[in-house]
Each structure stands twice: as C-alpha cells, then as structure tokens.
C-alpha cells in the first residue's frame, strides 16, 4: 500500500467514470445486491471505486492512516448504500462520503493525526527502498502538503490529480460552485509558499 514509485499518468486518468464502464441498469442491480449484503456485488462496487477513493483519502489523512480510514469508509459505504438514490453519480456520492470521513478523522484526532502524518512522511523518506525512484521534488511536495489544511489537500487533489471540473468539485465538497475558484487560488498560493520555503523552484 505504500509503494512510492510514481505511477504513469494513464493510471490516474479520472475520466473512466462508472457510467462508461457499467450500464445504469447493471449498476442499479449491483447497488441493490451490495446493499443487501451480497459480498460478490460489494466487491464489484469496491473495485469500481477503491483506487480513486483511496487516493483522495491518502491525500487528506496521510499515508500512515489511509488504510484505517479507507477500511472505515468501506464499512460506512456498504452500511449506507441502501440510502443511495441515484440522484447523483455513485462516484460523487461515495467520494463525498470519503472526503467528509477523512476530514472528520483529521478533526477528531487533530494533533495525533498531524503528528502521524509527519512521522509517516519522515519514515517513508528515510526507510522506503523505493525512495530513489521518487524525486526530491515529490518529497518536498509531501512536506509542503502537510502545511496546508485537509480541505485544501482535498480540493487540490480533486482538481490536479483527478481532473474534476468546478461543478463536480462543488458537488463532492457540498460547497457553492462559485467558491471553488477562490478556494483553489488560496490553496495553490499557500502550497506554493510552502514549496518555495522548502527550496522548490517552478
């Protein structure tokens, strides 16, 4: 779970949405069956969502806590799946749940989580055998990310890594679309400042 090699950009393409890979009728069957506890369908839904959800959780809570938060997310997902009404996409719905859960996790155990995040980063940097594959820039980015808030990590991740548009970001975060740009401005400025302090140059 903690490999640090950069993955190729193809893997990160965010546009392979559920609606493209599964028909709506199939998805309805999957959701119904999974909500009723059918393990096979739960697994299918997990596989559809897991990679993307895991990435955003990891970005918000940090590598060391990501597995725990992800497990809690999966449990919550299937216990609430019977409440999903297909009013938004399943991805958006699940995504929102994951982001909220991650932010809540940070708030609940703020000090501990921040510390764990920092420790994990330091450990990863000093002990990870794959570390040579990771550029110095990536290490600096990890440190700089720690300086901004969980909300800011979430919104930057959704924009830069997932490539979501403002409307989609707004619906995941439950904020007005008109505020997405200014929030991104603030997050980017703060991240830039941290990066520069750590010696980064664009």
């Amino acid at each position, binding site marked *: 779970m903690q490999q640090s090699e950069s993955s190729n950009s193809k893997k990160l393409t965010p546009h392979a949405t559920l609606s493209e890979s599964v028909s709506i009728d199939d998805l309805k069957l999957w959701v119904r069956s999974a909500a009723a506890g059918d393990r096979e369908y739960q697994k299918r839904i997990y*596989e559809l969502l897991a990679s993307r959800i*895991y990435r955003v959780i990891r970005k918000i809570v940090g590598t060391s806590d990501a597995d725990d938060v992800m497990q809690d997310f999966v*449990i919550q997902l299937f216990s609430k799946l019977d409440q999903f009404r297909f009013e938004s996409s399943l991805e958006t719905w699940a995504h929102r749940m994951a982001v909220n859960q991650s932010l809540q996790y940070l708030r609940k155990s703020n000090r501990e989580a921040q510390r764990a995040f920092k420790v994990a980063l330091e450990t990863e940097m000093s002990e990870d055998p794959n570390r040579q594959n990771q550029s110095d820039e990536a290490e600096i980015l*990890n440190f700089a990310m720690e300086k901004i808030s969980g909300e800011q990590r979430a919104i*930057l991740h959704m924009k830069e890594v997932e490539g979501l548009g403002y409307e989609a970001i707004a619906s995941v975060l439950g904020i007005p679309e008109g505020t997405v740009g200014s929030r991104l401005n603030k997050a980017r400025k703060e991240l*830039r400042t941290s*990066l520069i302090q750590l010696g980064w140059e664009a």
Partner: protein
Amino acid sequence: MINCDWIEERLSAYIDNELDAKERTDFESHCDHCNACRATIVEFQAIGTLMRQSEASVDTNSLWEQVAPRLDSDRIVSIPSKPLPKNWIYAVLVTAASVSLIWFFARNPSSDHDAGEASHEHAALAVDFQEVIRAAKSEPKVAIAKLVSKYQGKELDIKATESYLGYEPAVFKSIPEGFTRVSTHVLNMPCCKCSASICERNDGTSLILFEHKDEQPVWFGSLPSIETQCSGKTCKIIEAAGQLAVSWKNNDRQLTMIGANDIAEVNQWVASTKL
C-alpha cells in the same frame, strides 16, 4: 479595468479552463504584458504537474481482503461506545419499538407465514407502544412502568418472580461485573410470561434484559439484523439509535437485551448469563 488583482482572483479559473470566453480574452491580454502574472501562472501549473507526477501507486486488492471480513460485524461494532445519556432507553425504545413488538408478537404461529397479518398487527401495536414511550420521562423505570401497565405486569422479588414464571431467570444467577440488577418486573405478554430486568452500569446508565421461555427463534422483523457468535451463542443483533438490541437463545430461554453499548458488552452478558 483589468489589473493584477483582477487577474489574481481568476488565476485558478483561467488555469482550470473555467473562465468564459470574454474573461479569458481579457485575462490573456493583461498577461501578454505582465511578467508577474505570467510567472504565477507558470508556478500554479507546475504545482499541478508536480502533484500528478508524485502521486504514488495504490494497491486496493489487499485492502479488500482486510476489510471484507469486517463488513458484517462492523455494522455493529463501529458504533462509538460513548457514555449513554440518562434518557437513552427512550431513544432506544422509540426506534426499537417495532423490533420489540415483532419479537413479542411473532410468537403467533400464523404471523410466521402471513406477513401481511403480522405487519398489520405490528403496526397497530407499535402505535400503542410509542405512546407508552412518549409518555415516559427520563428514567428506565418509567419505561418499564408503561410496559407494566400495558401488560398487566408487576414488580416482584426474586422468589415471587420464580414462582410466577415457573423457573429462575438467568439474570438472577449471575450478571457481569460492573452491573447491578435494579429491579425485575414480570409482564404478561400475549406470547408468554416474560421478565424484564433493569440493570445499571457503574456510570448510572442502564440496559433492560427481557427473558422468557421460547421454542421459536426470535426474529427482528424486516429490520436489518446480523447474526454473529457472542461467547459461543448465536446472537441476532440490530442497531438502533446507536445502541444494540440483541437476542439469543440460552438453553430453553430466549434472552433479549436492549441498550447494549457495544459487542464487548454483549459478549460479557452472553457469557455470564449462560445456563
């Protein structure tokens, strides 16, 4: 007037392609002549590139192997075991009302086969039950009192309870450490004679343990319930208002507990009331 402040407000929207055509044109014509604004754009774009390049890979398969076994049991144990408020029993009973009633009245053999009749009966009774709860204040004793008046119940001492029921309730034999039995009432339910004991924790919160002789498996109607092993017994568990309602067969008895904090407490109770 397009100045650097105007640009600054729209930097992200420009980079992310969220500006309309007019604003985009204005934005670009300012930047054609402003090195400072151009430099910021370059930096913001570089941050995006850096983030995409630094994104580590993910292995979600092993995580599924870890989480899948938790999917059933964790619907229960994930409830935070926070201290219960004094009036917890009403919250539990309100949401568990239908549960308890189905439990009590599923004893009618026809209701096992005639879902329509069972739910009709259940609906009619549930109204009464909720009235009972609404009338209650903030003491479990009051909740019991309402049940008592509805089901010709009465508080009895140990000896009188035993002779009324014809057996010694398991709850009289032993209860877990940290609990005190406060009172036991007998209820003349349509299904059976039943005892209801209030047991108090050291922190002053309570749970109620119902016990009756039963040949039939208890079920919780259509509410999602989970069957799991607790201290060697198969327990049927539902979650209500953040608490657990649990039922298990104990020799020739059926024990049902409302208001358990968590699975650990259920285990404790199942173990120490074993006949």
